[in-house]
């Protein structure tokens, strides 16, 4: 697993974004961004077999 450390520097201090009273680490912001992307994708992407089920009803 040592190769991960050669791509992503894991020994450095974390990066933080600071705006007025808001202080958030970049890693946490990325996770929040991924959750929003997943949420939107879940609403927009077609579900397998959806049209077949509608026809059956």
């Amino acid at each position, binding site marked *: 697993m040592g190769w991960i450390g050669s791509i992503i520097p894991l020994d450095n201090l974390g990066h933080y974004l600071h705006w007025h009273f808001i202080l958030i680490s970049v890693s946490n912001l990325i*996770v929040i961004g991924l*959750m929003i992307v*997943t949420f939107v*994708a*879940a609403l927009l992407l077609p579900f397998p*077999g*959806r049209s077949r089920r*509608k026809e059956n009803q």
Partner: protein
Amino acid sequence: MSTTEIDRQWTTRLRRRAAGKLPPEKLLPDTQPAYVSSWIYVFGVTTLAALVVVIVSGCILALEGPQWWHSSNIGHFVNSTHLWSVEIFFFAMIVHLWGKFFMGAWRGGRTLTWMTGCVTFFASILAGFTGYVSQTNFDSQWISTQSKDGINATGGGSFFNVLNLGQMLMWHIVILPIAAIALTGMHVLLVRIKGVVPPFEKDTEIAR
């Protein structure tokens, strides 16, 4: 024993009530309504699957202990599995929460389903926090010393001492897992009793 006496027994009454509220075909249904064919409906069961991995990996960590998870390769692997399953658990739970919030999932007498979900969420946050302070490393020391002032400021520090590793570990591996599993079980049973909430337009159609 006469039939009347049998009818009066608490076991008979409880069985009849449970079977009436949740018959087997409702507990484990073969089909779901057409509107459930959407990706937004898969995050509840994703959360549940992640919870199973959290519990299994947590049980293995409890069997072997901190020395093992800090020093051996398999210990590192199970420790990481525990962490990443928790990450997936919270990730899926948040997307599930957003989905249910925007579809007003408390409609149609589902208030208790919504509330058990909310309380499970808060119990899970507390379980995650006590897990972070039970790691027995510098990270857990840092988190507990930083958080003690916040908790002391609320007055909660008198009975919930984040610097007391024994207490935090017991909360993490006994009290909170019991609460999370019981609440999740109740939440899932309520979903089975009341059914999956329909979309808003379906509700309007039914009202017409």
